[in-house]
C-alpha cells in the first residue's frame, strides 16, 4: 500500500534538508533511510527532514528516525523534523516519538534552531 516517496535533498548553509513526499511506510522507508544514515554518519552533520509533503508515517518510518537519532548522537550531529501534518503529528505524539526527535513547526524554525548564527 505504499505510495512512492520521491525524496529531494538540498543544502541550506551547513544543514541538509530531506523532503520526502507521500507515505513513509514499510515500502518507502528503506530508500529514505539509505539517504538519511550516511548523511548523519558524517561527524557533526545537521539534518532536517521536511515532512510538509508527507501524508502518513508507519512504524517502519519511525524506526528509521530512531536509527537516525542514534547515529546523530554517536557522531555529534543533529536530526530534527518539521512541518508535520495533523495525522503525522498525532502519530508522533501517540508513539512518543516527539520525545525522540525534535519537532519544529516549519523549516525556518528548524534551521534557525539547529544552525545558530
Amino acid at each position: 500500500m505504499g505510495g512512492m516517496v520521491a525524496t529531494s535533498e538540498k543544502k541550506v548553509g551547513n544543514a541538509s534538508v530531506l523532503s520526502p513526499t507521500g507515505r513513509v511506510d514499510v515500502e518507502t522507508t528503506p530508500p529514505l533511510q539509505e539517504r538519511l544514515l550516511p548523511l548523519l554518519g558524517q561527524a557533526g552533520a545537521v539534518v532536517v527532514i521536511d515532512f510538509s509533503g508527507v501524508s502518513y508515517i508507519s512504524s517502519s518510518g519511525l524506526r528509521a528516525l530512531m536509527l537516525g537519532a542514534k547515529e546523530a548522537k554517536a557522531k555529534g550531529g543533529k536530526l530534527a523534523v518539521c512541518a508535520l501534518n495533523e495525522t503525522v503529528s498525532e502519530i508522533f505524539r501517540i508513539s512518543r516519538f516527539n520525545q525522540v526527535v525534535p519537532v519544529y513547526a516549519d523549516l525556518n524554525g528548524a534551521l534557525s534552531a539547529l544552525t545558530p548564527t
Partner: protein
Amino acid sequence: MRIRFWGTRGSLPAPLGVAAVRSKLRNALRKASGRSFADDAAIDRFIASELTFAEAGTFGGNTSCVEADLDSDEHLIFDLGSGVREFGNRVMSGAYPNKKKVFNILMSHPHWDHIMGFPFFVPAYIPGHTIRIYGGHSTLDNAFRRQHAEPSFPVDYSQLGARIEFITLDPAKTHDIAGAKVNLMRQHHTGDSYGYRIEHGGKAMVYSTDSEHKFEETGDAYPFVDFFRDADLVIFDAMYSLADAVSIREDWGHSSNIIAVELCHHAGARRLCLFHHDPNSDDRSIGEVLVDTRKFEELAREGRLPLDVLSAYDGLEITL
C-alpha cells in the same frame, strides 16, 4: 467461546493503593458536586455516563492469567500469573458444574510473573484433579518445582495432590486441547516465549504476550500476520510506547500499541485487546494509552473496517 481476564498486569502485581483510591474518590465527588441522586440506580447512571472507566474502575493488579471458557468439559487457561488464584477460587465455589476438574494450561513462558500464581491455585492441592501444563519449552517443570522449593515456599511441589503433567508442544504441529484447535508460535523474548492461536466453534483468538516484534522491518511477510489472520480477538502485549520499545527498552522483550494496531490491521483481525500493562502505569495513563490507540487505529485504518480496540482489565469478559 467466552474469554475471562483474571490477570492483566505485566511483570509484577500492582495493587491499587490508598492514594489512588483517594484520588478516584476525590475526582468522583468533585464531578458529582451540586447533584443529588434519588437512588442507587441514579448513582450508577452517573458513574456510567460521567466517569471514564479509568476514573470509576481499575485496570487491575494481577499478573497474566486468561481463561478461555469453551463449549467443552475441560478448562483452558493461558498462563499462571497471580490472577489464577481467583480463578481457582471460582472453580472451588462450584461455578463450573458442567466441567470436569481437568485444567489445561497453555504457558507463554516460565518467567516469574507467569507462574507465580500456581502455589496459590487451590485446585492443585486436591487429589483427583488433573492439571496439564503445555508449552513450547521443554523444561517448564523445573520452574514450577523450583518456586515450590524451600526456602521460597512452605509446601513442596511433591505435596501437591493433583495429578500434574507437563507436555511439550511442537510449534510445527496443530494440537487438539480441550476441544480447541491449538497452534503456537515462538516469539522474540529473553529465553523465548510462545504465542497461541486457538480455534473453536468457528471463532479464533490469539494470546500473544511477552513478545517483541520487529514488524517494522518485515511488513506483510512477517509470519505473525498470518498467525493473527482474521482472528476475532488478539490479546497483545503492548507494555511500552513505540519510542521506548525501539530505544531504551529495545530487547526487553515487549511491544507497543502502535505495532499491535499495525499487525492486527495487516492480519484483518477484528478486535485487539491491549494486555500486560506496565506496573509503573496508573489507571489514568493506561486509559490514555487506550484513547491514543483508538485514535491511531483510525489514522492508520486507510480503507479498512474498524479494528475494535480494548484495554484488558482484571474481570473483563468477552464473548466471541
